[in-house]
């Protein structure tokens, strides 16, 4: 509850910017693909979130299936809403959980900036394709 209350003023600022600044909708993410093996039921990945705009922006990260928009609850993103300063980047941790022995789990993590959806003709997002493999 506190978290939402803290974010709302930020959203108001972003909304105003979208209406008045032409280049307010931007997001960057990398790497676009990665894979890794683990001996446990968890595998972590680091992604780099990029704010190419000169002003601070709020971003949302979420996981979806490899070839659909279905959410993947077993993929955890401890910090899934991030405020990044202008022209800066930050690392985001993604943890795939519940890996069975020998399992190969493919999924995507997408990033988008938080803004009222109806204020954009093009809603931009970037997705990274991740593959986790449990070897034992």
């Amino acid at each position, binding site marked *: 509850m506190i978290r939402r209350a803290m974010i709302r003023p930020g959203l108001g600022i972003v909304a105003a910017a979208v209406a008045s600044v032409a280049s307010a909708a931007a997001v960057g993410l990398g790497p676009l*693909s990665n894979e890794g093996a683990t001996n446990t039921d968890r595998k972590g990945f680091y992604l780099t979130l990029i704010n190419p705009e000169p002003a601070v922006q709020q971003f949302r990260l979420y996981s979806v299936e490899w070839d659909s928009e279905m959410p993947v609850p077993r993929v955890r993103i401890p910090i899934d809403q991030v405020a990044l300063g202008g022209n800066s980047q930050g690392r985001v941790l993604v943890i795939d959980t519940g890996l069975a022995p020998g399992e190969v789990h493919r999924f995507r993590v997408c990033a988008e900036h938080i803004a009222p959806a109806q204020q954009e003709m093009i809603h931009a997002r970037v997705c990274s394709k991740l593959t986790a493999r449990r070897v034992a």
Partner: protein
Amino acid sequence: MSKTATRIKLATGIAAAASLTIPAAPAEAQSVIQFTGIVVPSCILTVSTPGLLGVSTNSGTELGSELPGGNAAVLAVIATAGAPTIQFTAPTMSAKPAGYSGSPTISIKYTSTGGASQAYTTASSHYTSSSPLGDTVTVNAKADDAAGFPAGTYQVQTTATCQQ
């Protein structure tokens, strides 16, 4: 030329030769300054120009970015991991006035400097850029309704996704 003048000239020549043969500074006195950078294999999408919808003045049955008062949207793509694929969802009407209950046909089309050439479509679509580093996509949108559009604010939206 006098002897004095000759001596001066010789002395000058020796001094010049001496300055050319001064040994370089010892290696241990040198400093190497390096600059290191890492290019993350990433994709950056920037909507550099938001689109505007105009209204057809003769019939009032179409809203479109190519109509008078409209403007195409421009999406800039910067990819450092090779040529990315850009996907567009089927466009929707994300905002409309309360008094409008029609079912418009909504479509988008786009071209890009990286080779995209998509005619107006109501479905999702995608292309892979032929430009490995950057691309600029020009997107047009329109909404058609034979019953027309009452006064109000309308918004057509598509989601553009950059991925490999």
